């Protein structure tokens, strides 16, 4: 939870206003000096302006257009566009012309200087632009106040570093236990149990284990045939073979990829008011599924997601993987008018990496040093600097030649269309102004009066009123058509026809991935709804060049700063990239630029640090997640928080042993599954009762029996469709839109839920269901789908009557029950005993017991088979892995 984020609109604007007031005051003073024909002082008059408005792009950190305004020499020499200052000639000096708006692009790009500031610059240049100050060659800002320095520095005590989670894990010695246990996991667990006087449960029966393995690894129940196969395999390796078979199944990635997608706060839409669709987001989801299936080493998996564009071997998949960074909820409206939004997105990235990868609430250090853990606010801003170059863009999934050909052809067509459009505008213009005049008549008398008064004679109030209406009155093309002379209309139609012909020659858009790479965010193209309000923000048209670095030389990320209390308006020092200091061992590079120089290599360095054996947390957090999904609770129960406020590990030596093992086995997740699932612990019964154990360890913290687990929301739906036989196991591709009742669709803002009928087209696995941030799929929501806006390591599990209502009455569930009934009816050819037997084998992987068969037979005297299968889908046994 970003503390105090995103600042308050009110307080921030008032801060800004206060700053402006100070400026006005300062200039009132200096302007009066200027009026008295006194010399303008660089130090007192000019330098503050340069410092606040010019040096961020033409100073120590970067020199856009190769212009450096820190010294007089450099300013006279100028940059790509020539000299910035011609002493004595303000009107000819580029610096003055740009800040005064005489020439485009008006500078500074992110705002405008006050009239006072502009006039004092003019006077200063006319006076010869004297640089009376000590020259600023070092580019360092004036010495920070002691207070700021104190804010920015935090000493980490040796005691703080000695906290268990900040120490590198070491392979713990194998405990000596009395029983003969081959799997090291069991020896650690047995040791803890013996210490507590606990006795372990016996092994669960084979069918329970079979179901446990299927649900756990692929999220689907075994079919009756698969069950029979397994039961027939009496070899001692049957269990190992089963695990291998399931790990090789492509459905494994769908199940375990979904766990990671929770961490990655993946969704198919932006969120917030507009909740725009993200048409290519699914490619990242498919990447994750593929990565799990291929068992890509976990540290490589992280590197691809954080820096897939900067790796030595960049592939389509590694580019797609960077979609991870941009999976945050995004306002997607007036982004340029609200530069603070970007700080929220960065915070979300830092939060996700912190909690998801490091198990640390790094983002608590946004506004102040972390309250509980030794994480400095500076660590936060160094990590922000590591990510600060990021921009979102589309990446064509095509060969270089194809992409170039596409770009060329598109540019060619655009070039031909532009003059035709211009021509149309010329024809329309006279009609446009005439029709606008007509429209003014519908406004109240005072508005019409204000418009009628010549512009220069309007009072300030009338000017506002008239301006509002004139600026916002638009005349549509259709309205003009109706007013046009037949000749002109024919001419316009002809031109439009030509445009249409050209449009039809446009090549089919290339498939693209939504990626992240380095660039300059200030110049990124506007997204939907991003057009700045008049007079605000930066217009794309006036910027030059590209927001992506095309060379020559090396890319430099835009500067980022320490932000006092997290406020983007209150800058402290310029920040270098860096990591969380308390868990940084040795001296890892903070930049590792790729050979092509197009990106800074900061994200790459971050990924290397995260995925290094020197990092004490990454492996621990990863194995703990795997453990938690297998055993229903982590060794550290708070999967996302290994800090002081998190839970302590129940088995610290086991955790460390697993972490070391994980790294030494090449960060292979599949090997961890094999290791954990072949333990006796994983194969224990969950039915086991023991009064002594229950009293000594009522929470089952020390694993004296297996913990039962409710199916995850998606798996509830998948399992029902698996039972009914309706499940379409096609993998990947754009998301599907299962039916949502109209009443629910009406509760959300804008409709990007494709209204599809409930039917086979949408009966795909739930991992492929569209994730709309503003509208969680109702059936999933009822079964504890986590909030889709923040990283989630562990889902809540609640038991509420609305779950029962859904499973009892929802049309989808009833339809699946019916399909399930049809399926068994057909297979059993009307033999009612066989029908019940088969239905049990499908839903629960076992035949009915005698008493159950009897109840079923009685029930079927009175009620239909679909009534019966509906009951099966509601059973506790169906909804729990145990």
């Amino acid at each position, binding site marked *: *939870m970003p503390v*105090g*984020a*995103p600042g*308050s*609109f*009110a307080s921030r604007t*008032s801060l800004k*206003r206060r700053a402006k007031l100070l400026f006005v005051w300062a200039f009132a003073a200096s302007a009066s000096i200027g009026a008295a024909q006194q010399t303008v002082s660089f130090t007192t008059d000019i330098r503050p302006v340069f410092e606040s408005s010019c040096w961020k792009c033409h100073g120590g950190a970067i020199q856009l257009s190769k212009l450096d305004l820190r010294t007089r020499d450099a300013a006279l020499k100028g940059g790509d566009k020539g000299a910035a200052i011609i002493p004595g000639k303000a009107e000819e000096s580029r610096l003055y012309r740009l800040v005064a708006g005489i020439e485009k692009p008006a500078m500074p790009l992110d705002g405008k200087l006050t009239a006072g500031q502009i006039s004092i610059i003019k006077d200063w240049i006319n006076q010869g632009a004297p640089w009376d100050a000590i020259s600023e060659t070092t580019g360092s800002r004036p010495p920070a106040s002691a207070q700021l320095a104190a804010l920015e520095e935090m000493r980490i005590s040796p005691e703080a570093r000695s906290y268990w989670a900040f120490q590198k894990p070491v392979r713990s010695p194998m405990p000596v236990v009395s029983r003969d246990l081959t799997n090291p996991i069991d020896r650690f667990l047995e040791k803890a149990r013996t210490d507590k006087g606990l006795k372990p449960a016996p092994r669960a029966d084979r069918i329970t284990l079979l179901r446990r393995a299927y649900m756990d690894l692929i999220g689907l129940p075994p079919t009756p045939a698969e069950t029979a196969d397994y039961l027939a395999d009496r070899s001692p390796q049957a269990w190992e073979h089963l695990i291998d078979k399931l790990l090789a199944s492509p459905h494994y990635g769908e199940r375990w990829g979904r766990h990671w997608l929770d961490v990655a706060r993946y969704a198919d839409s932006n969120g917030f*008011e507009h909740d725009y669709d993200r048409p290519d987001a699914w490619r990242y989801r498919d990447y994750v599924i593929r990565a799990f299936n291929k068992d890509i080493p976990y540290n490589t998996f992280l590197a691809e997601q954080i820096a897939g564009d900067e790796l030595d071997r960049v592939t389509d998949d590694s580019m797609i993987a960077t979609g991870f960074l941009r999976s945050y*909820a995004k306002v997607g409206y007036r982004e340029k008018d609200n530069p603070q939004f970007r700080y929220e997105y960065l915070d979300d990235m830092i939060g996700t990496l912190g*909690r998801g990868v490091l198990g640390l609430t790094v983002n*608590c250090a946004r506004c102040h040093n972390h309250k*509980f853990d030794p994480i400095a606010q500076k660590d936060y801003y160094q990590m922000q600097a590591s990510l600060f170059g990021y921009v979102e863009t589309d990446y064509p999934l095509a060969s270089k030649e194809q992409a170039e050909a596409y770009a060329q052809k598109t540019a060619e067509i655009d070039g031909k269309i532009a003059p035709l459009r211009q021509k149309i505008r010329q024809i329309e213009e006279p009609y446009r102004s005439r029709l606008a005049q007509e429209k003014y008549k519908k*406004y*109240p008398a*005072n508005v019409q009066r204000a418009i009628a008064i010549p512009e220069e004679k309007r009072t300030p*109030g*009338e000017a506002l*009123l008239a301006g*509002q209406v004139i*600026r916002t009155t638009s005349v549509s093309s259709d309205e003009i058509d109706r007013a046009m002379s037949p000749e002109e209309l024919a001419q316009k139609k002809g031109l439009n026809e030509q445009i249409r012909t050209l449009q039809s020659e446009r090549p089919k858009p290339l498939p693209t991935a939504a990626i992240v790479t380095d660039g300059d965010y200030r110049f990124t193209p506007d997204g939907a709804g991003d057009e700045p309000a008049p007079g605000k923000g930066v217009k794309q048209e006036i910027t030059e060049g590209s927001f992506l670095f095309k060379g020559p030389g090396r890319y430099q990320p835009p500067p980022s700063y320490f932000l006092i209390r997290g406020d983007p308006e209150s800058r402290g020092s310029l920040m270098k990239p860096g990591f969380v200091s308390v868990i940084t061992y040795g001296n890892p590079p903070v930049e590792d630029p790729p050979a092509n120089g197009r990106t800074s290599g900061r994200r790459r360095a971050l990924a290397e640090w995260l995925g290094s054996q020197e990092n004490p947390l990454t492996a621990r957090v990863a194995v703990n997640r795997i453990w938690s999904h297998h055993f*229903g*609770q982590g060794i550290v129960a708070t999967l*996302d*928080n290994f800090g002081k*406020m998190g839970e302590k590990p129940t088995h610290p030596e086991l955790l460390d042993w697993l972490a070391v093992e994980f790294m030494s086995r090449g960060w292979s997740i599949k090997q961890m599954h094999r290791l954990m699932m072949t333990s006796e612990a994983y194969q224990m019964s969950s*039915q086991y*009762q023991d009064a002594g154990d229950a009293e000594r360890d009522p*929470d089952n913290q020390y694993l004296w029996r297996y913990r*039962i687990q409710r199916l995850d929301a998606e798996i509830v739906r998948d399992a029902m469709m698996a039972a009914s036989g309706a499940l379409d196991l096609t993998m990947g591709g754009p998301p599907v839109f299962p039916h949502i009742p109209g*009443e629910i669709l009406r*509760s*959300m*803002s804008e409709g990007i839920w494709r209204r599809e009928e409930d039917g086979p087209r949408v009966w795909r696995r739930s991992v492929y269901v569209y994730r709309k*941030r*503003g509208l969680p799929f109702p059936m999933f*929501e*009822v*079964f504890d789908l986590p*909030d889709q806006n923040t990283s989630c390591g*562990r889902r*809540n*599990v*609640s*038991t*509420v009557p*609305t779950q*029962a*209502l859904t499973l*009892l*009455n929802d*049309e989808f569930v009833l339809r699946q029950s019916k399909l399930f009934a049809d399926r068994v009816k057909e297979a059993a050819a009307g033999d009612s005993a066989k029908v019940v037997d088969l239905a049990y084998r499908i839903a629960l992987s076992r035949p009915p017991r005698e008493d*159950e068969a009897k109840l079923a037979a009685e029930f079927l005297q009175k*009620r239909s088979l679909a*009534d019966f299968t509906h*009951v099966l889908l*509601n*059973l*506790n046994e169906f909804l729990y892995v145990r």
Partner: protein
Amino acid sequence: MANFWSRRDFLFQSGGGMSGLALAYLLNQEGLLGAAPEGGACDAKAVGYNPYAPRKPHFAPRATSVISLFMSGGVSHLDTFDPKPALQKYAGQPLSGKGEVVVRQGNPGPLMPSPFQFRKHGQCGMDVSEIFPLISQHVDEMAFLRSVYGKSNDHVQATYELNTGKIQMGLPSVGSWVTYGLGSENQSLPAFVVIYDHRGGPLGGPSNWSAGYMPAAYQATIFRSAGDPIIDLKPPAEVSPEQQRDRLDLLAKLNQMDLKNYPGSSELAARISSYELAYRMQGCAPEAVDVNSESEATRKLYGMDDKTTEPFARQCLMARRLVERGVRFVQLYHGGLGQQNRDTWDAHDDVKENHTRHAAEVDRPISALLTDLKARGLLDTTLVVWHGEFGRMPISQKGVGRDHNPGTMTMWMAGAKIKGGQIIGASDEFGYKAEQQPIAVHDLHATMLHLLGVDHTKLTYLFNGRNMRLTDVYGELIPQIVA
């Protein structure tokens, strides 16, 4: 106080790994396990594992339930409860001297007086616009807050702020906090109910009533104002009640047989009782919102007989019936998706036309709600809160409309033994910014919780290693309200 939240925290913080045994132990402590759920009664008390079990407040509450009346789109304070003679005096002139004029759409216009007449009402002499002829009769029971300000001039973010205290998505709403803190008095109905406008939900959608990082159990249940109140409350028509009962009976038998193999697992026991609860809800929820069973006089009082007032009258009447039955938090939205400028209070185009129409839709129902709650003795135990997501601008849009203004808005509270007839805080002479006693949304939330007997600094939920609060690290009680 130390153990105030501990049991429930324990249940949820431990999430999926909750051992049934631990739970069984706890429930046995309270003598709950094994007690059969009461059947049939619509005022059933909590039994067994239940996130809605009623919980003791921190101190004696002033009210036990809340009705929130949310005027979606942003109702204008200047045209309802905060008259500004200065707008008449300086009409047509630019707004100056109040700092930067921030508008949402286009460029600022000149100052515009209200198109409505204000008259003094009640013993307190409160000025109310002519568009509320009936609500104005209750001013002596209402406390007006004329200086509430928000952080965003964007509908969605502002609506989130009013509901959750923050402008981001995905945080628990005030109704969720209240339900989490206090549970519910009635186990046959949901604890937190939202009924939105017949034209559609408010901007921002379900995030406005979500439980955020809390368990899903604390999110609102949407009640529809027509047909079955809850989605999936009842099976489709082709399934008969007997058929449904037979299924439930078989399910209960099979689940009970299965439970014998897992005697220590109260999760499984909880699931079994959740089906009984669901079954009871099927009977009780439709009854709870059956406005047709009200007397003719009551129906008329609310305006059920007039098609202008009927939709919101129905929502208000449902709210009263729900509160009467022990539902903790009911939130009604007036104004919903459709065409923003027409179907909500978002009066960019024409404030006179827009507010005249919307006021006519809510005036009688809200007035009736206050009358009715009072007549039934419910007003003293119910907190009624009325507001939009922000106020509107004193300057015009094209001579007729008003843009968004988070700088100040007027809201009112009634019931909960709040001293009526008082005006708290003030906006500046144009109504552009809160001036005297500015009230932040966190202050409002702190005060609401206080009235319910909850200390906002002590109601916490552990998430991401931090004890989260509805009011974050902020929130001051509004002294005149809690006095």
